[in-house]
Each structure stands twice: as structure tokens, then as C-alpha cells.
């Protein structure tokens, strides 16, 4: 079990902007030997300076190691930090679809009341707007198609300006999740294309 001091120590290190993970190594006598930080998207040398200041306050003898996860990602992976689905629900009583998305550590919520298919897609777009996306397209169609393997949902998004429609397809346990995942599929394709360009 961690001591409250060690918990606060780790909390302070994690509060530094860009720190993803903290590992605290101990010597045999229980003293802290080294602290390894994994960082993402921030200047590792600046983090090292601030982390060293904090580490010195608690455990003056401990060394500080900073590893930058940004380097481990290829440029394209860095750009395409994917929008992930956390939750998609349809409430049969209210007729509302609620979608929760996560992007780069932030959570966006969206709600729409147009049934499971359109509602799922619209709630996803609303959640994306909640995440701060300024979406340059609108929802054109959401259809469920019969296949030998089930009922996948296809979502079509159309740009406000000129450009090709974007399609996404997904099949999950229920329509609202399928519609949400298909919308994200279309968005992720759009992002991939955008990052390549």
C-alpha cells in the first residue's frame, strides 16, 4: 500500500502537463531510487526540469528519467489520435440516444432523439462538436443493410463545400452502437485523409 506522501508525490508528477505515466523505483531499504516519466506531446526537457524540482522536494537522492512517447509514434499516428467510443445508449422511454466519445483525454457528450440509427449518428456528431470539432460536413444518410453476416449500418457524411461524400460502416450488437461506430469510421477516414494531405 502506498503512503499518502508517495501518493501525493505521484499526483504532483502526474499533474505536470504531458505526463502520461509515472514509475517509482525503490531501493532495497525502501527509499525511492528513481522516477521514470513517460510523456506525450510536450517538451521532455521542460518536464524533466519541473519533475526534478518536485522529486528533489520529496526524495533528494532519486534520479529522474523522462521518456517521450511522442517519438515512438510515427508522424501519422501522432496526427491520428483516434476518436474513441466510450458509451452509446438508446433510451426507449425518452427515445434519446446518448453518445460519449473520448479524444486525447477529453470526453464529449452528445444527445439526439431521432431513433436508434439517425439518433446514434446525430448524437455522435453532437459529441464531436462537444469535443471542439468544427465539422465541415453534415449527416446525409444512415441505413441498415441486410447481409449474410448481419445488419451493418452505413453512414454517409456530405461536406458543406465541394468534395466527395464520406462513408463509414460498422456492425455492433445494436443499431445505436453500429450507427455511432459507423459515424466514427467515416470521421476517422476523413482524419486519415486529412493528415495524409
Amino acid at each position, binding site marked *: 500500500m502506498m503512503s499518502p506522501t508517495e501518493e501525493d508525490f505521484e499526483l504532483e508528477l502526474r499533474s505536470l502537463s504531458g505526463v502520461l505515466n509515472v514509475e517509482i523505483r525503490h531501493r532495497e531499504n525502501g527509499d525511492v531510487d528513481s522516477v521514470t516519466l*513517460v510523456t506525450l506531446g510536450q517538451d521532455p526537457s521542460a518536464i524533466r526540469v519541473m519533475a526534478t524540482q518536485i522529486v528533489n*522536494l520529496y526524495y533528494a537522492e532519486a534520479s529522474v528519467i523522462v521518456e517521450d512517447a511522442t517519438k515512438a509514434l510515427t508522424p501519422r499516428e501522432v496526427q491520428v489520435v483516434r476518436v*474513441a467510443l466510450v458509451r452509446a445508449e438508446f433510451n426507449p422511454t425518452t427515445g434519446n440516444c446518448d453518445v460519449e466519445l473520448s479524444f486525447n*483525454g477529453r470526453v464529449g457528450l452528445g444527445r439526439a432523439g431521432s431513433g436508434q440509427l439517425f439518433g446514434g449518428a446525430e448524437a455522435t456528431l453532437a459529441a464531436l462538436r462537444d469535443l471542439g470539432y468544427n465539422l465541415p460536413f453534415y449527416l446525409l444518410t444512415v441505413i441498415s443493410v441486410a447481409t449474410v453476416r448481419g445488419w451493418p449500418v452505413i453512414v454517409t457524411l456530405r461536406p458543406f463545400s465541394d468534395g466527395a461524400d464520406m462513408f463509414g460502416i460498422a456492425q455492433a*450488437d445494436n443499431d445505436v452502437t453500429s450507427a455511432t461506430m459507423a459515424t466514427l469510421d467515416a470521421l476517422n477516414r476523413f482524419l486519415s485523409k486529412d493528415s495524409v494531405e
Partner: protein
Amino acid sequence: MNPTVDGASEGAFGPEQQQYEPWLFQTMLDELSVSELGIGFIYSVLDLLVKRYALSDAVVVLSHESFGPQMFRAGGQAISAEFAASIGTAPGVYCEPDVVPNVERDAVRTACQLAISLHLARFSAAHDPLTNIANRRTFDSALQASCVRSSRYGWAFTLVLADLNGFKAINDSLGHAIGDDLLRQFGLAMRRSVRSGDVAARIGGDEFAVILSNADGHDSSGFTDRLRSHLGSARELVGFTIGTASSPRDSTDPAELFRIADARLYERKGASHR
């Protein structure tokens, strides 16, 4: 290792929820009986998850408005940069082998999210956000407790009030960013200058206070010397004035002690201006 996020909804709202066992809440209760929910709880839960499903590895990725994405690995193990990159930053629980039901992973993630939020809330309620030293509320409680001990058992302590000289002028001429940085450096120097058992706090804009345990009035000179040396380059930009009062010698009443230290501080400040 498969992320839970992309398929998080697949079983989370179905009948699987009924089969959920309350081990997680028992862990919470156990943790609460000895301490408060915090980072330690997250590691406890991950270790239990590993044991419960005979996993070789488990990682939870959390998101927090103040922190951004955070990763925790069972056993407090390191996460290499490559491993972190392969997991990504979407919130979820990642297990090896991938045998934990979604509902249980969602519950673990939610409980861990709660723990880190509570830890941060607790820390923020007690500390000044700019300097990470104690805030006024924590300081007042500590001063009250020290006065009670001093009055009851005669334990001596010294209250030191410190005020930055000309801070407003620096803020006005060089900007608030420089001013904030100066306050941060001063807070850091204070943390480095106090001994374990002492309490350093920011009690106002550029006003700081320290309770030096087991110290009589003249003992504060050691602290002020350390503070000066730890200020480093910031000393060129700003100086400070202190006022002290000792308990039980001067008073055992917190308000009176504060008043005496404050009066001495302004006396010194006035003297330096004359």
C-alpha cells in the same frame, strides 16, 4: 492486448451487468477503512484484477480535465514509450490476456476515474494551485492545532510571515506571467527550506507563512538563510521581508500570534523604506 474502448458498449448495458460481483466495492471499502481513495487505490484495483483473472498485465488509461490522459500499470510498473504509444490515450482498461468482461473493465475504469478525481479534489482543497504549498485553509487549521499543542504541552513553535517586496510593481511592469513564475519560485524555495513537520503556505497574493515546529523566535534565522539561498536567481528580481512570532512566548492564540507577526513584518518593511 485489445482496448476496451472500441467495443465498450458491446456488453456494458446488457444482462452481463447482473453478473457483476462486488469485489471492486469491497476493495473501495477496504481502502477507505485505512486511507482515502487516491492513486494507491488504482494500483490496488489493478493488482486485484490481475490476481482475479490470472492476468500477466493490466493497464488503465484515464482521462481528466486537469491532467489530460493518464496511464496506470499493475504493480506500478513502467510503461515504455513504445508501449504507451501502442495503447494510445483513449480511456479504457487493457488486459493481457484479453479475458476480462467489458462490464468489469468499465467498472474498474469508472472506479479508478473516481479515485483520481477524489485525490485531485482532496489535494486541490488543501494546496495553493500556483505553488503547490498549503493554502490558507490548511494553514489556519495547522496554526490552530499548533497553538493548542503549545498551550497544552508547552511545545514551542515559530510563526513566520513573509511578504515579497515590490511584487505589485513587478506584476505591473513585467506582466502577470513573470509575477506568477516568481510566486512559483518562491513557493518552491519555501518547500525546499522547511524541515519535515513544518508547514509552508501561501496565505494571500504575495504573502506566505510558515510554522516552524519546535523552534523559538531566533531559530527562524536558519529558515530565512535557507530560503534566501534556495531563491537563486529570483533573488535578483524580488526580495522579501519577514515577521515572526513565537508560541508560547508571544501568545498561544492563533489570531494574536498572527497579529504580532504581521505587526513585526510591517515594522521591518517600514524600517527598510525609511
